[in-house]
């Protein structure tokens, strides 16, 4: 099963990214576990310097921006 983490402390962009991820997961019918990471020490495992960050199966794929739906779908499907 896919593991997706949204890194962020609850600012507007972090919530928007989380909603977007849920939407993509639902539309593509993927079996994915979506987690929210709000702990700074944990975030630094991926060297994140600007929220929000998106982690798919332990790899940071985007940071400091909200990727497009198409991008997220691509990351989740590969």
């Amino acid at each position, binding site marked *: 099963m896919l593991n997706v983490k949204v890194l*962020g*402390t*609850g*600012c*507007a*962009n*972090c919530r928007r990214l989380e909603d977007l991820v849920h939407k993509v997961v639902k*539309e*593509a019918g993927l079996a994915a576990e979506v987690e929210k990471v709000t702990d*700074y*020490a944990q*975030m*630094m*495992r*991926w*060297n*994140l*310097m*600007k*929220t929000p*960050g998106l982690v798919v199966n332990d790899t*940071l*794929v*985007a*940071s*400091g*921006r909200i990727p497009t*739906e*198409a991008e997220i*779908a*691509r990351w989740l499907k590969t």
Partner: protein
Amino acid sequence: MAQPVTTPAAIRVASDRRAWFIAGGAMVIWIGAYQAIQPLADWLTYELFGIARDSHLGKSVAFFLYDVPKILLLLSGMIFAITTLRSFFSPERTRALLGGKREGVGNVLASGLGVVTPFCSCSAVPLFIGFVESGIPLGVTFSFLIAAPMVNEVALVMLFGLFGWHIAALYLGAGLSIAVIAGMVIGRLKMERHIEDFVWQIKSGGGAVAAHSPTWAERFAESWRSTREIVGRVWLYVVIGIAVGAGIHGYVPEAALADILGKGAWWSVPVAVVIGVPLYSNAAGVIPVVQALMAKGAALGTVLAFMMSVVALSLPEMIILRRVLKPRLIAVFVTVVALGIIAIGYLFNLLMA
């Protein structure tokens, strides 16, 4: 979801060309609208509403009808331009540029980068950890953290719109100076042990995400999104601020405030700072009021000090930074910046005498 996995260069060029075309068209419309504001405001006030030109009410209404569209247009246009410029910078790149710089040079560079690097206070903590952990000196990190909110785009655009470019430039220069000097002072004070211990224990995973290099179409789309977001957040404050300012313009007699907010009143600078600190995020509403006060005899230094304390020191940011800084370091941070702002206030009052 039927997007191609790899976008051919040709499609990218075409979409960039289209983005530039739209941006150019928007600019032409923007310039036309900007030119139309003054005649339209005058026409509405004096012809349509039929208010006498020399009356208090006429002055206030014309001022309001001119300034509201002007400032909102300026904000939209310039924030769009600034966010597009910022899309060329990132915290990762800034950190790389600051790595290995000595104090002094590092403080100056960090303050400058604080202005152009995209930053929001919600990212202050990861950014702080990322800087400190990669060996950037604490003082240099603080120069960045002071400059970033102080020289904020909304404040700068409103100063430009209401006071003119020279005051906006003064503000920029003063803000950068405070960031450089306060950062150096904090560096000298050797406050490293007042950073929360967990920061030193973090071992970051190294491998940052491969830099995403956006197309022009993406840059413009992102800038447009953040412009709408920022203007959407501040427009009401702008309208209220200008309404209050317009009232002051029309009704408060000239030089009425010279005694309390003028150069002669030595205590007005520290008082302005003390009042300004809790007024977080209302720079948009505060600046028009302050502009009106200045027209009635308030001194420039006092006014600048007030605005700087509004944007540079805010309670929410202190609470966020408390996660990584011990109370002692927060107190030092606030004190050093506040003293810097007060010094700038006195300096300008002295220079403009």
